[in-house]
């Protein structure tokens, strides 16, 4: 990808993305990362960026969204994956090292990593 230095360059690249968006169907995969004080202190920002990098590397289309504290602070960083209208699976104590395996198992193979799950639905 070319380096983007100005908003003008962004405007040009936009056209290309719109073309590629038409080819791909819009995604139904949503990945939510808890970004309350508890999440941030536990490394949630870094986890979110590891997820973005992994999605880019593997060319997976998904929406990554940050939310506030949901009250499971001791289990942070929390990552919830929802696919195709199915109930979400929430994983606890996710760190940067666990992210590639999480994406590989859950999003590529479609297998839930049971020992990391802390809540379903």
């Amino acid at each position, binding site marked *: 990808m070319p380096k983007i230095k100005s908003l003008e360059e962004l405007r040009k690249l936009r056209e290309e*993305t719109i073309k590629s968006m038409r080819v791909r169907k819009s995604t139904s995969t949503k990945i939510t990362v808890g970004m309350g004080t508890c999440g941030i202190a536990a490394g949630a920002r870094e986890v979110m960026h590891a997820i973005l990098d992994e999605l880019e590397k593997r060319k997976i289309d998904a929406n990554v969204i940050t939310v506030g504290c949901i009250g499971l602070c001791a289990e942070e960083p929390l990552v919830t994956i929802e696919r195709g209208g199915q109930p979400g699976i929430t994983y606890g104590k996710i760190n940067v090292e666990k992210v590639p395996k999480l994406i590989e198992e859950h999003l590529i193979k479609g297998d839930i990593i049971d020992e990391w799950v802390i809540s379903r639905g």
Partner: protein
Amino acid sequence: MRELSLHILDAVQNSIEADANRIYVKIREDFGRDKLIIEIEDNGKGMTPEFLKEVLDPFKTTRKTRHVGLGLPLFSAAAKNCNGDFKITSKKDKGTKITATFQYSHIDRAPLGDIVSTILAILCSDKEIDLFYHHQVDNKKFEFNTQKLKKILGNIPLANINAIKWLKSYLKYNFKELYKNGGV
């Protein structure tokens, strides 16, 4: 927290929780006066004078998901430990403004850290918000706001993975420029 940018992310999450849709983040690194000033201002629901008095008490929080609110007390302690100051002003139904001042060269001052990651994490919020970012390092400035970005992106959401990729590249380049002659 290891980085001031994590405190910024945390304070902005407070603004988002307070239903703000316009959030201003202003960072000023002033080597001449040996100061680092961080301002976060929002148009959220604000606080009553009574709550404002108690807001730095970790056992006061409006949240229902847990009983302690550590974010602001930690931010305040970080500033005060660095020969600095921490101020909050707030008006019910109008918004809140936080100003944290640090002695720039203080040995205990955490680095600003990965501000690009903080900005991207804010932009991925599930709430509809506009961020106005202003960063000054000595006499060099970098400014951007999401209203402009959204205009350029049109129907592509900010959280779109391609949009995030571009923004990362755009922000990284501009911060590099900002710090070209000195800075931490």
